[in-house]
C-alpha cells in the first residue's frame, strides 16, 4: 500500500520546457504513467513520447490524467495549480520554487473555496514517490525501495539522505512526500500524517523539519493525540542565525521557540524519537522497529 499515488496514477506534466521534459522523462523511465504534457503553443507536439496539449482541460479530456507535476516558472506557477484544479486534477505536485507568498496565500484560499477535493503538494518541493509504482518529482528514483517507512519532509536532498539511510538499513519506504520549504504549503504535515497512520503498510514515519514556523509542533500534537505508529524526527537549522533565510523561503528563525534545538526538544517531549544527528535517521528507525 501507499498514500496518494500508486501504479494507477495517471500523471501529466505542466511546463515541458527544459526542466519539465527532463523530469517527465525521469518519471516515465521510473515507471510512472506519464500521460501528457501541457504547454501553450506546444499543443499537438510530443515530448519524450508523450502527447502535449495547450491546456490542462484538453489534456485531461484526452488522457484521463488525475495527477499533475508542475514545472511552470514561478510567475505562472500558482495559475498552473488553479488550472489543474479547475480541470479536475485531484493531486497537484508543484515543483517550482520561488512562487510569491501572496500567490500561494490566494491560491490556497481559492482551492479551499472552489476546489476542496484537490490535494496540492509543494510548491518548492521534490515531489512524491511510492517506490516501484509512481514517482512524481525530481528525486533520484533508484535510491528508493518499496518498504515499511513513510517519509515526510520539508527538504529535498535531506529527504534523499533519509531515504538512502532507510534503504541501506533494509527498511524501504511506503511513500515519501517532500512537502516543500516555503512559508505557505499546499499540504502540511497535518494533512498527510493521517494518511500514513491509515496506511496498513507504513510501520513508522520519518519527519524531517526545518527552522521556521510551528508546523513541527502541530505535527507533534497531532501525533500524540491521534497516532499509534512510531515517529523519528530530525529538524535542520540548529546553526542558523536568527533572521537569515536559509535557502528555503520558509527556513528563517522567528521567535524564541523557533530554533531547531527548541523544536527537537519539543518533539522529544511528546515522545517522538528526535535525533540530533541527521546521519542516524535510518539507524534510529531500525532501532525503533526492532530490527
Amino acid at each position, binding site marked *: 500500500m501507499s498514500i496518494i499515488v500508486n501504479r494507477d496514477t495517471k500523471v501529466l506534466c505542466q511546463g515541458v520546457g527544459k526542466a519539465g521534459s*527532463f*523530469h517527465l522523462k*525521469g518519471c516515465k523511465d521510473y515507471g510512472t504513467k506519464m500521460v501528457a504534457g501541457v504547454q501553450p503553443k506546444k499543443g499537438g507536439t510530443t515530448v519524450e513520447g508523450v502527447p502535449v496539449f495547450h491546456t490542462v482541460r484538453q489534456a485531461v479530456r484526452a488522457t484521463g490524467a488525475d495527477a499533475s507535476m508542475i514545472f511552470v516558472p*514561478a*510567475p505562472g506557477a500558482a495559475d498552473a495549480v488553479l488550472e489543474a484544479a479547475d480541470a479536475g486534477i485531484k493531486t497537484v505536485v508543484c515543483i517550482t520554487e*520561488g*512562487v*510569491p*507568498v*501572496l*500567490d*500561494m*496565500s*490566494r491560491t*490556497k*484560499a*481559492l482551492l479551499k473555496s472552489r476546489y476542496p477535493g484537490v490535494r496540492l503538494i509543494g510548491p518548492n518541493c521534490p515531489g512524491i514517490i511510492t517506490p516501484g509504482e509512481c514517482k512524481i518529482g*525530481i*528525486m*533520484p528514483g*533508484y*535510491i528508493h525501495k518499496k518498504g515499511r517507512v513513510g517519509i515526510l519532509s520539508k*527538504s*529535498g*536532498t*535531506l*529527504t*534523499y*539522505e533519509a531515504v*538512502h539511510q532507510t534503504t541501506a538499513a533494509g527498511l524501504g519506504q511506503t511513500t515519501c512526500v517532500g512537502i516543500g*520549504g516555503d*512559508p*505557505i504549503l499546499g499540504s502540511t504535515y497535518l494533512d498527510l500524517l493521517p494518511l500514513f497512520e491509515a496506511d496498513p503498510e507504513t510501520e513508522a514515519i520519518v519527519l*524531517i523539519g*526545518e*527552522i*521556521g*514556523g*510551528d*508546523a513541527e509542533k*502541530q505535527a507533534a500534537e497531532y501525533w500524540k493525540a491521534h497516532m499509534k505508529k512510531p515517529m523519528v524526527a*530530525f529538524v*535542520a*537549522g*540548529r*546553526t*542558523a*542565525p536568527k533572521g*537569515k533565510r*536559509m*535557502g*528555503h*523561503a520558509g*527556513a528563517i528563525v522567528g*521567535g524564541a521557540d523557533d530554533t531547531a534545538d527548541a523544536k527537537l526538544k519539543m518533539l522529544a517531549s511528546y515522545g517522538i524519537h528526535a535525533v*540530533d*544527528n*541527521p*546521519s*542516524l535517521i535510518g539507524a534510529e528507525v531500525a532501532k525503533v522497529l526492532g530490527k
Partner: protein
Amino acid sequence: MKLHEYQAKDLLEATGVRVLKGAVASDPAGIEAAIATLSPGGPWVVKAQVHAGGRGKAGGVKLAKTREDLREKARAILGMTLVSNQTGPQGVKVRKILLVEACDIAHEIYVSILMDRKEGRPLVVASAEGGMEIEELAATHPEKILKEHLDPLAGMQPHQARDLAYRLAPGEAPDSPVPAALAELLMGLSRAFFKYDASLVEVNPLIITPSKDVIALDAKVALEDNALFRHPELEALRDVAEENPKEVKAAEAGLNYIALDGNIGCLVNGAGLAMATMDLIKLHGGAPNNFLDVGGGANKDTMLAAFKLLLGDPQVKGILVNIFGGIVRCDLVAQGVIDAAKEVSLAVPMVVRLEGTNAEQGRALLATSGLPITPAAGFNEATLKIVEAVRGK
C-alpha cells in the same frame, strides 16, 4: 529585500498612509540642502537610515531643537558606526540620514502586517501600546497584542479597520476624528502590503498627536524577493551597501549563500542538507563558516564561483563538499571540483562526500585527480573528518 525608512514612507504615502517624509542626506552638502527644505521652526529629528533595527537605543535617532543643533547632530550621525542588538558587534556604518520635523505625541500605537504561515493568510499584529519593542510586549503582556487575519483575495475590509481603530484608540471621545483616520491609515497599510507584495509592513510608532492627527511616524517595509519580478521599479530601492558584501558577491554569482562566523566552508546541494551539514559540523565540535546551497544545477561554473568565494575568505580553514546527487550527477560534480580546485589552487584541507547518482565514478575521479582531497563515504564521516582537519587552526 529590506527598505530604508524614507523609502518605506514613499511607498506607504502612495497607498494613502499619512507620513512625515522629511528630507534625506548622504553627505554634508546634502545635510544643508535637507535642512533648507524643513520648516524653519524646530524641533526636528535626525534618524540614521540603516536596515538594522534598534537604532534608537544605539544613538541613531536624535532630537534637535535649534538649527545649529540639527546640523551638528546630522553630521554626527551621518558616517557613525551604529552598533545595535541587530547589527552584531562590528556595527554598521550610517550612510544616509533622514531629517524630519518632530511631532508632539499624545499616543503611540504599534501596527504591522505580515504573512501568517500557519493560517496561510496575512495577519495584522497591533497594540495600543506602541513605541516599545513588540517582542518584549508580546512576552510580558500578550493580552495587549491584537491579531486580525486578512483574506488574501479581499484584503482588509473596512469593518476590520474600524474594529482595530476603536481598539487601538479606545479613549477617544465619540465625535473624535481619530478612529476614522486611523481606520483609513490601516486600510492604506493593507493596500501597501498587497500592492507591493510586502513580506512586512510595520509602523512603530503610529502616533496620535494632541491635535488628533494620525501619522505613521516611523515605517518599515520589506519586500518579498520572489515577487520582485512583478515590481521591477522597486528593484532600484535595493541598497547593497547595507548587505553583507560576501552575500552580495554570492548572489551575483547565483549562489544561495549566507555568511556565518566559523572556519569550515560548506558547499552542499539543497538547503535542507546544507543546514543539516552545518548542524552536524557543530555537533562534532566544529564551526561552519557559511550556508551554501549550490542547488540542482551544480556545474563547473557554480563550483568555481563557490570555491572562489570560500577560498577568498581568510576565515575559511577547511572546506567540506557534501553532495547528494539526485538530478545532479556526482561524476560531473567531481569533475567540477577538480577543475575548480586546479584553477584556484587549494590551500586548505578539503573533504568531499559524494553520494547518489554516479557516486562511484565521482569518487574514482577524485581519487585519481592527484589533488589533496580527502574522500568520505558517509555524511557523518565527512563532517568528522573536516572538523578533525581544521582542529586547532
